[in-house]
């Protein structure tokens, strides 16, 4: 496989918490490849190591051993990051979580704008871009609302807008539809697929929502810290949903 086509590559990632009698292996020799434009689903029961893998790839939670390569660049070698993790996240990675995780003292627009300004955008330009993204996600009319004044679905769409703000080359989503109804959940998953294909980004989504699996290019399953290809999951064919 041409390495230039790879968005994410993990090489035998292992994460061990504690030591001696309290040692817990959360992730064992996980090797995963995500191509550019590919949307990958990560399934598995609670405690299987999905979130550990996601946070390791996001340069948040370093592995005990193994390597992580993003866009052909070695970014993590064992527990040591080979790049400035904060700056790298800002430039290349978009995060979306189960809870929308908006900053409560910023409005919907400002939540998106802050990510742009941190990346060096001027205030006016960042403001316009934030409004464009909110419009793209159908929540422009709520731009000046504070997070507490938004519904769960609206909050999640603002969080997606923020994750997309800096046109990341990889998007990591941890159960992004858990707080949404089925319709909104489908919308968000469709959106990931659209962004992945349009921006040529690699997307990993941790999910247990089998209704949305149709949008994924690849499905992996984790159990007891081990990664394996998914088996027995029906690929639901879904009619594309127009974003509201």
């Amino acid at each position, binding site marked *: 496989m041409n390495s230039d086509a790879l968005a994410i590559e993990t090489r035998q990632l292992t994460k061990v918490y504690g030591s001696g009698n309290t040692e817990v292996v959360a992730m064992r020799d996980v090797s995963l490849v995500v191509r550019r434009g590919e949307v990958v689903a990560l399934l598995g029961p609670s405690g299987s190591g999905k979130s550990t893998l996601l946070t390791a790839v996001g340069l948040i939670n370093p592995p005990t051993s193994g390597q992580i390569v993003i866009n052909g660049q070695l970014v993590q070698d064992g527990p040591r990051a080979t790049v400035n993790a904060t700056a790298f996240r800002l430039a290349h990675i978009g995060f979306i979580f189960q809870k929308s995780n908006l900053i409560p003292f910023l409005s919907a627009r400002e939540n998106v704008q802050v990510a742009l300004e*941190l990346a060096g955008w001027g*205030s006016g330009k960042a403001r316009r871009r934030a409004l464009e993204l909110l419009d793209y996600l159908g929540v422009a009319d709520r731009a000046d609302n504070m997070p507490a004044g938004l519904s769960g679905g609206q909050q999640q769409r603002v969080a997606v807008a923020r994750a997309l703000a800096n046109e990341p080359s990889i998007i990591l989503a941890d159960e992004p539809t858990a707080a949404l109804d089925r319709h909104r959940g489908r919308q968000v998953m469709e959106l990931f697929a659209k962004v992945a294909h349009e921006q040529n980004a690699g997307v990993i989504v941790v999910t247990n929502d089998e209704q949305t699996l149709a949008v994924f290019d690849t499905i992996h399953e984790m159990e007891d810290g081990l990664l394996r290809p998914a088996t027995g999951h029906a690929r639901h064919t879904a009619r594309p949903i127009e974003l509201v």
Partner: protein
Amino acid sequence: MNLAVKDIRHNLGRFALTAVGIGMLLMVVMGMGGIYRGMIEDATLLVDRTGADLWVVQRGTRGPFAEISRVPPNLADRVAAVDGVARARKFVYHTIQREHDRKPFRLTVLGLDWPTDRGEWLPLSAGRPITHNHFEVVADRTLGLDLGERIPLGNDVYTVVGLTTGMIDSGGNGLAFFTATDAQAVQFDLPGEAIRLERAARRNRAGRIDLSRTQPALLERAGGESVAIPALPPPAVSAVLVDVRPGFDPRAVADTIAGWADVSVHTREDERQLMLAGPVEKAKLQIGLFRVLLTLISAIVMALILYTMTLDKLQSIALLKLIGAPNRVILGLIVQQALVLGVLGYAVAYLLGQRLFPRFPRRVILTDDDLLSLAAIVVGISILSSVLGMWKALRVSPNDALSG
């Protein structure tokens, strides 16, 4: 986008209340400094206002403010005869406590050597200076007397003919200016029975010596008025104030007078230093230490508040870190909020103080230097007190955003 301002706006009510609380604490710190300055001003007020170059007092004493001093009234005439002396004034100074409107009435009596000293140096805010040798008084407004009011002291009644503002002694008591003669009358006022007993005692003492048998009139004199007995001195005064002629060195004049065996001489600067090193020294130290303590307490309270504010934002801080905010952005958020809190608190302290301090019983003087120093201290406290919050913020992992 200024994250600190956004967060403050979001929690405006709580932040404003916190700023008012800090402000009140800082107001106490500011007030303590003002009271300290006020004490110094009060202590040196008379020394500066009387304008005397030299203070001639009882030998070996630091009077008349630091301790009791008694000199004979004719000392003024002796001093006036010294070369280089332009004017010598008798000065009477003592504190009394009586009742006025059924409340304790404490005032410091100051006797002016009328007509040599007519009190032209008094800062009159109403009425006129003393124009008669007896029964007139110029009182400070802090005593609560009205112009034209008549106050009985001893056997006499005195009329308030003038009012001053800000003339108080180092203990905070209002000053009342009388002629020296009246001030002595107030000081040495004795009940009729005490005078009768004293005269009887004098007569008994005279009766025990042979002289009274050969000179019977002596017995009669001994039982009469003190002023009719040349051997008894007139009431003493507290000090003699000396104005030195232009062109003469006050120190040289002081050396001449200090050569007399019965008096000590202090220059104006000596007298100022005696006041500052004497009656107000301990109070000054006490207030200074209390001020340091309050400043420390303010710093601790601010640190706790900022720490709590940081704890409230841990999830947001983790999230900001997760989306790529460098530490300087996070630290900037905390330091800016600390500075805004400090500046607002300072403003509240200043504005509240301007309204409250004039109502204090003691004078509170806010000097520009003190206000600037406190402002610098507040900035320092703000930055220092945010260290705890910054330490906590730096320990936040982006991973915490996922667990929230």
